[in-house]
């Protein structure tokens, strides 16, 4: 991270970047959603990506050609990020982490209901709910959902330190405290990154019910991977149908796929008659052209 001399981003992203990289001394240019910038004859505009607070898709335009780069994105609504916009573009570079039809994520309301129910069940069994959730985005989303139902949360430091940026954006966390102030008491839920699943932070809570919040939770195997009791496919990425919808709405002449099941998703688009190829395997493309 320290290598970035200059960053451009939404004000929220720049603030989060500074918080996560306190030593960083480079220049930052803040570009709110919808505001344009131009350089070397190319116009740049940022659109909501729906991934986490401040996340943006980048749209470049020059001489009637345009490129939309989604970055990590999702179209489902959530509490802290506006759903991804789909500005029409001629070339779409799309992030395909979950580019297979097995990845179908339920709507937010249903997931939050399941989350709250699983926490209440844990409390009834005199257990501490332990939510394994990524520190940026998912941890705050889960905290807000539990707060809305009156369930207090203890946050791992990685998630706790980002709260000021969320508060600046208008979100409140009245029922939360940092893990530093002590392990969870009865009636409190712990929120920690998935990487903590086998560390003392989680393991020393003897009576616990572990909830794994991730798109990967559709795999039963993640139960064993994270020593989890409850699997909740809570994701900040687009599922398969959203990927298809995004392609349809952006309406590009050509699609490049990136990350995850890039190859499979490109093949599926090709089968539907689209010009699509994975960016991760440029040599295959060259071979076809030859």
């Amino acid at each position, binding site marked *: 991270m320290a290598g970035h001399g200059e960053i451009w981003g939404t004000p929220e992203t720049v603030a989060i970047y500074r918080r996560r990289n306190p030593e960083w001394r480079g220049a930052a240019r803040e570009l709110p959603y919808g505001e344009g910038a131009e350089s070397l004859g190319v116009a740049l505009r940022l659109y909501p990506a729906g991934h986490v607070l401040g996340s943006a898709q980048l749209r470049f335009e020059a001489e009637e050609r345009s490129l939309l780069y989604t970055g990590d994105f999702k179209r489902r609504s959530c509490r802290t990020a506006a759903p991804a916009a789909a500005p029409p573009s001629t070339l779409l570079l799309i992030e395909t982490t979950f580019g*297979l*039809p*097995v*990845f*179908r994520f339920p709507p937010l309301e249903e997931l939050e209901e399941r989350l709250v129910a699983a926490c209440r069940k844990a409390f009834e069994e005199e257990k501490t709910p332990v939510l394994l959730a990524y520190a940026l985005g998912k941890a705050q989303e889960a905290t807000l959902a539990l707060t809305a139902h009156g369930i207090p949360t203890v946050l791992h430091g990685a998630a706790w330190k980002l709260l000021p940026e969320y508060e600046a954006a208008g979100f409140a966390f009245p029922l939360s405290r940092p893990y530093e102030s002590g392990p969870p008491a009865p009636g409190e839920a712990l929120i920690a990154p998935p990487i903590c699943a086998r560390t003392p932070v989680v393991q020393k809570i003897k009576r616990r019910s572990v909830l794994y919040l991730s798109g990967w939770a*559709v*795999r*039963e*195997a993640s139960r*064993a991977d994270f020593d989890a*009791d409850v699997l909740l496919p809570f994701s900040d990425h687009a599922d398969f149908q959203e990927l298809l919808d995004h392609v349809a709405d952006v309406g590009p002449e050509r699609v490049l796929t990136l990350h995850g*099941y890039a190859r*499979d998703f490109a*093949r*599926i688009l090709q*089968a539907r008659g689209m010009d699509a190829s994975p960016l991760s395997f440029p040599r295959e493309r060259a071979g076809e052209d030859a």
Partner: protein
Amino acid sequence: MTAPKGASLGEGGYRLLAQTLDAVAGERGKLAKIALLSSVLSPLEGNDLVVAARLLSGSPFAEWEQTVTSAGWATVARAVAGVTGWDLETVGACALAIGDLGEAVSLLLPANSAPGLSISEADEALRGLARQRKAAEKQAAIEAMLRRCSPVEGKYLVKTLSGGLRIGADITTVEEAIALAFGRDREAVARAHRDSGDIGETARAAREGQLAEVRFRLFHPIGFMLASPIEEAAEVAGELPSFAVEDKFDGIRAHAHKAGSRVALFSRTLDDVTAQFPEIAMALALLPGSFLLDGEIVAYREGRPDSFFRLQRRLGRKAPAPELLAEIPVTFIAYDCLARDGEPLFEAPWTARREALEAAAREGGFLLSEVFRAEGLGELEALFEAARARGNEGLMLKRTDSLYQAGKRGRAWRKWKKALATFDVVVTAVEQGHGKRAGMLSDYTFAVRDGERFVNIGKAYSGLTDEEIRRLGAHFKKITVGRYGPVRAVTPEVVLEVSFDSLQKSARHKSGFALRFPRIVRLRPDKTPAEATTIEEVARLYEKRATR
């Protein structure tokens, strides 16, 4: 789980079983799993109960039937493609992404509000599938079933067809659920299951209070009693006087059933391997009376056991050619007698079974494993060295007062193998080799067992003959579940024994360990993936070596 007592579940019965299996998978505690299985079994009776108990234990047929649906992965995947409308490559990619074809199916199938298969329809459909011979017919039969399935039914139907439910419940769990459902003693349930070779009939007998009437029948494969490993003589110091000591033979464990002139040899995987060893079958058929012997098929030359490496060439051939029979003769070394002249001996102590074995051996026809006794650790170590000098693997120690616990691994039997450790690993991925082996699937990635999944621990390139590599290569193509460029991910079912120079911690493999210079010692067709070395055993060996 609301069906009235004594009812058959009728329409949608299979869905209820599938939902129960899913609930069992989501529970951690064994007691909770038993309670769920018990509550779905308790209202059932008749054929529904028989079939439900089998399906809940993951096998659609009784063990003794020796029937399999034998629908390969590719056939099932094609059926899934046919029903979901996705192409085969996408289905394969989905199965690989999710880690299980059954789970992938449940995520691909649309919701289905029709009531679905009844239990007896599921039974008939699976039996029909087993009767089909052609892959295309099997595919059509599976498609017909899947079209009636909701996602959860599709999940467990495909898991059943792929040979593993993976719900963290073993056969003992189902036995205990039957005991709980009908208020019976769980030992009695386990005994009836062992003797009948059918968890379904066992459930019916439990409901009807007829467990005691279940009689052992020859020619139904029986589970094998297994030994716990020891690593040095000192571990059994206190118990030494209670143990009979025998050589541990390096062969294929088998049960030999014999009555009249009929003989059947069953392997550890409960497969009928009689046709592979005609000379053993013939020799046993000539003996008087009926019996069930436990022993080892070994290659035998000039009065002593030959290497397992040579025996391996006899394996997997339905009808070995006469030249091969002459080149690599095999024999049966018996070390236990589980039934004789109509009398089951499972619950007789080892001493009594040994007497029956010696009586059966009087006419020849098979070899008798020699029994030794060791007074002290020094003598035990001398026996170990002598066994090794005779070309055997090490020693078996058997408590002379112990009963035969079919299908269970206990401390009544111990095995003491060579000092140099080897692991039994499961192949998870294969790719083509280089140089001399270019074009052959000769590079294997392999894994050890971690609960119900497999975690990679290494990769090896050699150790097998070209012929073996070719034979296995054809098999790996059949069980390929996905491709990453040159690498084929395969269904974890082929077990290999690997040796290595040392064991290290490593972040490269999911197991957290890596083997230095792993070499394939041999194939272990006699072992199932469930018998692979576990991650706990690896960790234990690492600790042990680290403290040296």
